[in-house]
């Protein structure tokens, strides 16, 4: 029997890796994947505790999160394509037009 702590540890690890990926990486794709990783870390957490308490509510939420993430992925990917078309790059450091003082 794998303990609850282990599940929690794995999901927290997944979430933390996701956070580090978002902060540290510059490629938009990698950032996107890191976000998905964070989502899945949370999903794992929810599912773990749902099983632990024999309560289906959290599992329902998890399914909803996965389905919404799928829809979001479609938008996210199309946005990334548009960004790439406008700047020919996927480096986040280039997309700073909303900062003060910089001209378009």
């Amino acid at each position: 029997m794998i303990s609850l702590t282990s599940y929690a540890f794995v999901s927290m690890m997944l979430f933390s890796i996701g956070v580090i990926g978002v902060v540290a990486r510059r490629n938009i794709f990698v950032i996107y994947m890191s976000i998905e990783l964070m989502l899945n870390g949370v999903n794992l957490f929810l599912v773990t505790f749902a099983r632990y308490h024999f309560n289906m509510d959290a599992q329902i939420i998890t399914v909803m999160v996965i389905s919404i993430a799928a829809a979001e992925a479609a938008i996210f990917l199309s946005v990334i394509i548009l960004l790439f078309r406008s700047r020919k790059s996927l480096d986040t450091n280039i997309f700073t037009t909303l900062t003060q003082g910089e001209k378009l």
Partner: protein
Amino acid sequence: MNTSLLVWIVLAPLLGSIASGLLYFYHIKKSKVSDIYFSLIGTITPFISFLITLSLFLRMLDEKIIFKQQLFTWLNVDKLNIEMAFLGDNLSIFMSMFVTFVGWLIHIYAVGYMKGDGGFGKFFAYFNLFLASMLILVLADNPIILFIGWEGVGVCSYLLIKFYYGKKENVLAANKAFIVNRVGDFGFLLGVVTLFFALGEVDLSFSSIEANLSNASDKLLVLSGVLLFIGAMGKSAQIPLYVWLPDAMAGPTPISALIHAATMVTAGIYMVARFHFLYSGIEEIGLFIAYIGAFSALLAAIIATRQTDIKKILAYSTMSQLGYMFIAVGLGFYSTGLFHVFTHAFFKAMLFMGAGGVIMALHHEQNIFKIAQHRASLPIIATTFLIGVIAISGIPPFSGFFSKDAILAAAFQEGQYLIWAIAMFTAFLTAFYMFRMYFIVFVAPNHHEADYVYTSKTITIPLLILAIGAIGAGFLNLPSVFGGNHFVDTWLGQLHSKHIHMDIVTEYVLMALSIIVAATGIMAAHSKYANFDVSKPENETGFIGNKFYIDEIYDSLFVQPTKALSTFIDKIVDEKIIDAFIMNSSIGFVNIGKKVAMIQNANVRFYAAFMLVGMTAVFIYLYITLGL
């Protein structure tokens, strides 16, 4: 009793002023309006006032009544209740009698004097307003309404002194008059406020002030007496606030006549007489007033002996005569003081109008020696001028003798021998400097004949009417030794003035003395100036010629420090302290804003990290506080 006429004394010139003002606007904006309309409005409205005053006066002669007209409540705050009310008692009707009469004559004179001037209509609008303000002052039923007139007179004098505002001196003179008067006005206002609180916040009409006077503490009454007198010092040009009066000569001559004879400068005397119930209770202040009057009279007379400007000599003589009036009212001889105001109005208006005639005839030349060099033949003006000069010098039976001699006798009777001696010496100086002016302007031999003479009927006729007044006004208050019935003293019985009671021998001796003194002055002037070589004029040099350097002393004592203080506040306090504080704090906010804005660098990863830090902080907080 139908008293609704009373307010029309004030309203007539006020409406006249508004009418001329509007017409003048039309004149400059649309099409030209003939001077005749302005002169009609300007001369008829004072005449209406005079007629109404006369009718009220005649009614008061028959039946002993006091006119009082309440128009509306002007201000009502808590216990302070100010009625817009006019009071026509013996004092105010007496005063407005000659104010309107002399004022009216000066208006007629101004028609001739200002003929052809571009600002003819404006002049009459101001002129009527001046008279209306003075009448508000005279007929006011409480000190606040009096103060409206008091300020109105100040404003009108300002407007009229700088009537020719193109010249810098005129503007400076007007500013000086206005600012010096403000010092006095401030004193007056404080005096009224002190009185209001001293009396226990009662209704402020003169009758209720008089009735409640016993409630007040002596100290506060003395304080308000002094403060009110500071106001009188400013308006009536006494030491130390007299400096504006000679400079006020910058205005056209009819204004000088109006200021000196009928309006403005007599306001201070009138105000003291109005508050007679206050001043007769505080005799030490009365004595102070009398001393101020005596020294002002002396100072002005000394300065006048060296002046060369005909109008300035007259201005100083006015100040000197006002000093006499203050001696009288200060010692409690209110009716005597007002009698001198009354006679003075006639001969001073006449002297100014005569001087104006001379000045006009010689292309606005005011230096008496230059006037003498180009003397024109002006018989009527010369004669009336002589009458005025004799009257002011105090030679019987001209009016000035009776009023001035009564003041001298009053000072003697009260045992104020120093004041009496000063006044006597001033009488000598008065005769001297007035005849000095007369001899130089009209008598001293000259070598040129003038080629230009302008006079007009409107100038000479008022002069002749005033000449009758200057000769005859004295008989209204003939001393009992000459079988007189003291008409003015009786008429002004409400003032409870002191009267002159001395044995006949003393009175005759005093009269003889004052006649001798005046005659000596005339002789001295005659021997020095009757054959004076006018081609070698005297200059305003020396200590006296420079007016004791009073203007310079005031300049370095008050004006320069004030300027320095203003500069200090402007350049140091305002720029270096207040501005610096405000500007630096705003610049600081801008800089902080710039620093904060640097966080918004549009770097997604940075935002994410920031969010992470924030969320971590929130979780740590929750962990600590909730103990999870």
